[in-house]
């Protein structure tokens, strides 16, 4: 655990917003990346949903240590995602193109409609495309980069639209068959690192999730 934290601090030290990882030296086309990812991406593309566990570290530039949280997630293609934080607090966040719904341990639900959250649609789309490794859709929003890494691969994304660049400098995705780590470099100098494990591909969406994500 201590080693992991140390490793992260090391990465945090080298991967500043102004000094992006090495992968950004390798621009790539959709076809090149498809070859790089291999058969894994095809299986992902056919799944209706991905379910798994996450560990999140949020590095604020004002804070020496990251804000760490963990829990489980479910991303349903074209519908949205459920982000269930279990530690250090219990809260379930549902993001769909229509609304943000937050349910806390107390059971109280807070719903904010997309009409009041203009960026919601874009955020849901990006997460959807990230988890499914939908290169075609990612290419519409980002400039693509890619490189081979040990047994797996590293993808780099840079936003094309200025509106997204206001928020996000770059995204780095590392994986072997599936994405294992996603690092989001935010424009203000903050950084979010997401680690995934135990992913399972679902051929059909479970009924409870379907109800939760219903448009």
């Amino acid at each position, binding site marked *: 655990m201590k080693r992991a934290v140390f490793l992260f601090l090391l990465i945090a030290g080298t991967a500043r917003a102004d000094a992006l990882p090495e992968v950004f030296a390798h621009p790539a086309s959709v076809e090149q990346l498809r070859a790089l990812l291999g058969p894994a991406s095809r299986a992902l593309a056919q799944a209706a949903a991905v379910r798994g566990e996450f560990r999140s570290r*949020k590095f604020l530039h004002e804070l020496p240590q990251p804000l760490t949280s963990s829990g489980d997630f479910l991303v349903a293609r074209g519908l949205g995602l459920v*982000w269930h934080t279990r530690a250090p607090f219990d*809260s379930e966040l549902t993001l769909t193109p229509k609304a943000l719904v*937050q349910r806390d341990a107390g059971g*109280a639900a807070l719903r904010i409609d997309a009409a009041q959250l*203009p960026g919601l649609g874009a955020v849901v789309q990006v997460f959807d495309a990230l988890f499914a490794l939908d290169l075609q859709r990612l290419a519409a929003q980002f400039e693509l980069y890619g490189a081979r890494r040990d047994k797996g691969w590293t993808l780099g994304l840079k936003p094309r639209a200025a*509106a997204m660049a206001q928020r996000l400098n770059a995204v780095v995705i590392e994986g072997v068959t599936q994405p294992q780590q996603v690092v989001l470099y935010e424009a203000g100098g903050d950084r979010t690192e997401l680690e995934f494990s135990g992913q399972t591909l679902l051929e059909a969406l479970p009924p409870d999730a379907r109800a939760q994500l219903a448009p």
Partner: protein
Amino acid sequence: MSAPKGVRLRYWLWSAFAAAVLIAFAAGAPRLKLQTDILALLPPAAEDAGEARALARFADQLGRQNVFLVGAADFATARAAAQGFAQTLAASPAFAGVQWQVPSDWLQRAAAAYAPYRAGLLAPQTRAWLEAGNDAALLARARAALYTPAAFLRASGAGDDPLDLFGDFLASALPAQGALTLRQNVLTLRAPPPDGKTYVLVRAQLADNAFSTAEEDAAARDLSAAYAAAHRRGATVIGSGLILHAVAAAQLARHEVNLFGGVQLAVLSALLLWVFRSPRMLLGAAATLALGVAAALVVCQRVFGEVHVLTLVFCSNLAGIAVDYSIYYAADQFRTPGRWRAESALPHLGGAIAVSGAVALLSYALLAWAPFPGLRQMALFCCVGLALACASVLAWFPRWLRPAGAAHAETLHAVFVRLAACRERCAMRLPRALWLILAVAVALGLARLRFVDDVSVLQPHLPEPLAQEKQVRALLGSVPDSAFFLVRGADPEAVLENEERLRARLDALQARGALADYRALSRGLPSERTQARDRALLAARVYGADGLLARFMRELGFPPAAIAQQQAEFAAQTTPLALDRWIDTPAAEPYRALWLGDIARTRGPPLYASVVTLTGIADAAALRAAAQGFPGVRYVDRVAEVSGVLHRYRRIALAVVAASVPVSLLLFAWPYGWRSAFSLMLAPTAALLATLAVLGLSGVTLSFFNVVALHLVLGLSMEYSLLLRLPRLSGPASLLAVVLAAGLALIAFGLLALSRTPFIHALGSTVAVGVVCGLVLAAALGTMPTVGSIREGAGER
């Protein structure tokens, strides 16, 4: 020999006057201003002038806004087409501004404008949590905005605003985007199936008022060029905005004026030439009309400063009435074919033409009684036009006219002698039972009369822009309705406080579903009172030494210095954000049009006003009630008000028509005596009732404009009655004159009945029915049987 001398003098004097009028017209013609806004025909909606000006300005502002959705099967095509569409419009002089890309740093600049005042700015939800002491909800929201993907939606920096108080305020101050989402710097939406297209939003503002712009060729030309540019890129465009309606309405009006005027002119010329066999007659009739119209335009321009295009459409039938005087005069030649000279008609017919002109003038003048700007203009236009046309006939024709060839005159005379005899025979033999049946039919028809006072009668039926408008509204779901609240106050602060009180009621109504949403200035700028209250609330609950912020920041691991810095920044911010500082910042952009400023201007003490626009009104009565007993707030529903105005004036117009009958009776009694006057008014009154009955039986719902048409029916049928029933005038020549005049009126108004503007259609169809009723009834009632008439009539034969 004095008569020909007088005739000559009048001829030349009138010619000189006509020349003067034409010079005045030629001098004023380039400055002639055409108004095409339907609402300009209606009385102002507000009680006081300042408010009326403010509302007019807001309506003008709103009327300049246009929204277009450029749609294609995929986003990239739609985006490229939207760019082409926007660039074409931007190059047009008719458009002052076109936006298709959202400035990517708008939110940052808006946030920067608010940042120095954030100590007093709270989102309603956060305020409610703090007031209720619901720390748990506030902290849960703050945690979600820090730890989860929701962090990518926050509007403020995480370390700078750990509780997301400012971020939540910014989100609440942003106007709702409706179905739109931001993608690659453009606002876009995906239509639900079966459409399924992806649309990109383009906004455009006109450089000038929508209706005056529609008159220019540039707007229509550049709009169709922009549509074509989008089509070439494989996209479709749907639009919503007054300009689309105005352009279509202007095209329709131009088309109808040209069509109706052209057909009328052709038929009129052909008939007159055939009947009178004299180009001089046609030229004379044209000159009387031209003089009448030119003078009417000059006078209207002087009095009103502009001429409404609907006045022109309405008065295109003026020709149909004004030409009657020429016909009556010229038709006199068939009284004594072969022996007739132009000046001999003057003593015989001059009086009747003058009386009929006076009666028509009076009935138009009564129209001006209604305080209805549009009607006044139409009344003035027609009065001037008719008076001059009538006077021209009396002054010019005795010297100008030449009779047709004797053979042609004999033929026509013979035909109408037979027709006149036939008419007298029929009139004698009409059984009383027939009159009784007619009376029952009229009673039935009158009983079935239905009135509808709906503003839609004013709007031309333009399916194309209407369909686009409907589609855009359905897709966006956030286009403001035509009703809104007007909020006033002695200063900007009072306006904002009134708005906040109103919003408390609107929020309740919104929760109940009485309306979908609203847009109010005070959402983007809380009143200073609210800012002071929120600042006090934050000081007590959040920014204290052991307040919510300090506890949360310690929990996150912030060093004490960072906490102290946040608290110090809060303490230093003491000035509230005032309207004059806010209104010109990017933050105010979505709200700027709602601020009307000082509407009193220089008159009296200042009075400030704003507008609260409404979307998706489901319960108008509840909204109206929300403004009741609330000084400074008024619910303005132009559509309902216009319908109310139409209702009121329909009743006034009915009273005017009813009053016209006794007034005309008086006017007839003066030259012809009471008995004759009663007898003369019989047919016109019956024609009025019969017209109403026909409309009632055919199930037409009547509006104000049908009633105005009844007015014309009365005037025309009085002419027919005068010429057909007055024993001194009655004869084959008069019958010819009346049949010709009625035929031409039928053509003129029958053409108007084809108009796609409902109220012009109503006018046209009602008068067309009325002309037939007036002619048939005047003919069927026969010549008035007086001793004098028999002697005179016998002498003529």
